[in-house]
């Protein structure tokens, strides 16, 4: 029987009661659908569905993870300096600046994709500017390119990178930075040897929060891409309701989950999870 700090014992069942709602919730809304999806994926072909669907969609699978990886790296490149400035130079404006980071979330995801479509469209300001300065010809465009889809993925998931990195940087003990400077470390060296390693758990968490939903995204590919920018989510969404393709699409859903899980495990193995922010 557990003993509380005040010396009173806690009944053995209390932790179970506390954890039960969450377990039931996940059981009903995650495990049960997953089991049903798993059974469905074995219909009409069994395990060969997995092999077939992976072989048939290998190009889309590779493209999906490539997009998600590039968007994650771009989010680190954009988000880390932003989080660093807010954490170290934000002063009293920290709250405001963080509010601005999450401001896009006040509009729906779909509307943000549509806004990008207008912005990058053939009659939009981006293409108009590029044509005006002579970089684009009359028929060139930004929509239906890898850049458009990856750019939108980066934009949409950037706050998921900034926030954990910010928290991680906030937790860095300033005295360690000062100690580094006292030991004749220049700003760059101090950053590289002290601040960066201590903030890596935030980068790790932000990378997971960016990469996982980006790999499952389909809205941006749908609105900003062409057939050459399709992602796994696009294929599943387009075909899941088709009766004859349901097993294959269920299998493809599992392939997507398995690949994301494998990637996350490798990443966790490399960086460790002990100090996650």
């Amino acid at each position, binding site marked *: 029987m557990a003993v509380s700090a005040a010396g009173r014992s806690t009944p053995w069942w209390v932790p179970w009661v506390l954890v039960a709602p969450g377990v039931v919730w996940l059981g009903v809304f995650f495990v049960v659908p997953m089991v049903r999806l798993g059974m469905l994926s074995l219909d009409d072909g069994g395990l060969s569905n997995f092999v077939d669907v992976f072989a048939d969609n290998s*190009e889309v699978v590779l493209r999906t993870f490539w997009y998600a990886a590039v968007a994650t790296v771009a989010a680190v490149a954009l988000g880390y300096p932003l989080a660093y400035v807010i954490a170290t130079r934000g002063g009293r404006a920290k709250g405001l600046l963080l509010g601005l980071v999450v401001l896009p979330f006040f509009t729906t995801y779909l509307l943000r994709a549509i806004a990008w479509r207008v912005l990058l469209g053939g009659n939009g300001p981006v293409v108009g500017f590029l044509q005006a300065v002579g970089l684009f010809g009359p028929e060139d465009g930004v929509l239906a390119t890898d850049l458009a889809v990856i750019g939108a993925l980066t934009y949409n998931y950037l706050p998921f990178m900034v926030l954990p990195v910010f928290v991680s940087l906030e937790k860095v003990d300033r005295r360690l930075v000062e100690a580094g400077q006292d030991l004749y470390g220049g700003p760059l060296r101090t950053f590289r040897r002290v601040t960066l390693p201590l903030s890596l758990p935030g980068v790790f968490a932000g990378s997971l929060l960016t990469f996982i939903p980006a790999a499952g995204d389909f809205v941006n590919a749908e609105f900003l891409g062409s057939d050459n920018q399709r992602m796994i989510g696009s*294929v599943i969404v387009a075909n899941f309701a088709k009766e004859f393709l349901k097993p294959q699409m269920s299998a493809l859903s599992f392939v997507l989950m398995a690949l994301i899980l494998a990637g996350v495990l490798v990443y966790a193995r490399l960086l460790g999870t002990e100090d996650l922010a």
Partner: protein
Amino acid sequence: MHPSITRRRFLGGLAAGGAAAALAPTLLTACGDDSSGSSGGKKVVFHNWPLYIEGDDPATSPTLTGFTKAVGFAVDYTTAVEDNDSWFDKFSPDLAKGKGVGVDIVVLTTWMAARMVERKYVQAFDAATFPNKKNVLADLADSPWDKGRTATIPWAQGQTGIAYWPDKAGFEIKSMADLLDPRLKGRVTLLSEMRDTVGLMMLLDGKKPEEAKVADALAAIEKIKAARDKGQFRKITGNSYTDDLGAQEAWASVAWSGDIAQLQAEKPGLKWVLPAEGAMSFTDWAMILIGAPNKAGAEKLLNYVYDPAVAAGLYESIAYRAPVQGAVEKMSAEARKNPLINPGAGVKLHEFRVLTADEDKQLAEAFNAATQQ
């Protein structure tokens, strides 16, 4: 499937579909699962495609409000059919168990209507409450999959052809062959509805879709795949093709007539053409589901729509071919001249043969592999 869907309508449709699905069990409880077909409720629950009634607004639709005034039943009308597959996916599990889903009438495309009939998910009409069924156009009065039109009745018929921007394309498009022209590389969209796109390609090959052989359809699919692999197509998609076409990101699209009638109202430069080798038509069929809470009311509604005077107003408004004899004669002179409403005897339209389950699966998988991966 066919009418143009604006973003607002798309989202509204999603919400309506979700609400309908969420409310279905409640409706069942409230109305009772009256599969006997008696008039158990005072409203008719109707699932239809967007833009298939006047103004897409049941509150102001003269057809629906007129029916309520004349017959006394309210109509719970929602644009819950976003596409055939998603509607079927949502409701077929209960229908397969012989249970009603709280819906009286649904409108689905030929191939799905045939599936609904084959699986006995629909009920036969009662001639006593639907006498105007005799007014159905002669060419739609019978089909191999519903002999004598016992359980399905056409709601609307449209055309599948080509819409394009002449100034962008730079040449006159007359045929599906023109959509494979390298000058349009990356600027063409095809429909992800297999029967429409493959049917048009088969016509280009000189094959008739109404007599489709699997080998011919597979050859057409192979041709589509070869062009897609070369980057000819921007997208092979459903309703959302109108986004690319409307924004002139796509210069030429395989398109549904209803969509283009809507788009042309805003963008008169958009041109509609039926391919020289032949065009496809589609028909969406109204049917009464098993377990319909108000079968008699549903039949009375269809009977009301099949009054030529009512049909004239409805189909003139939504710009689809009226499937009701005598309706065209009661339309305005302008509507009678509109080829989308009144195609005329000279226009040869084709409709894909109803496939067996095995053929359907084989072609669906081949088309999917060629266009969606």
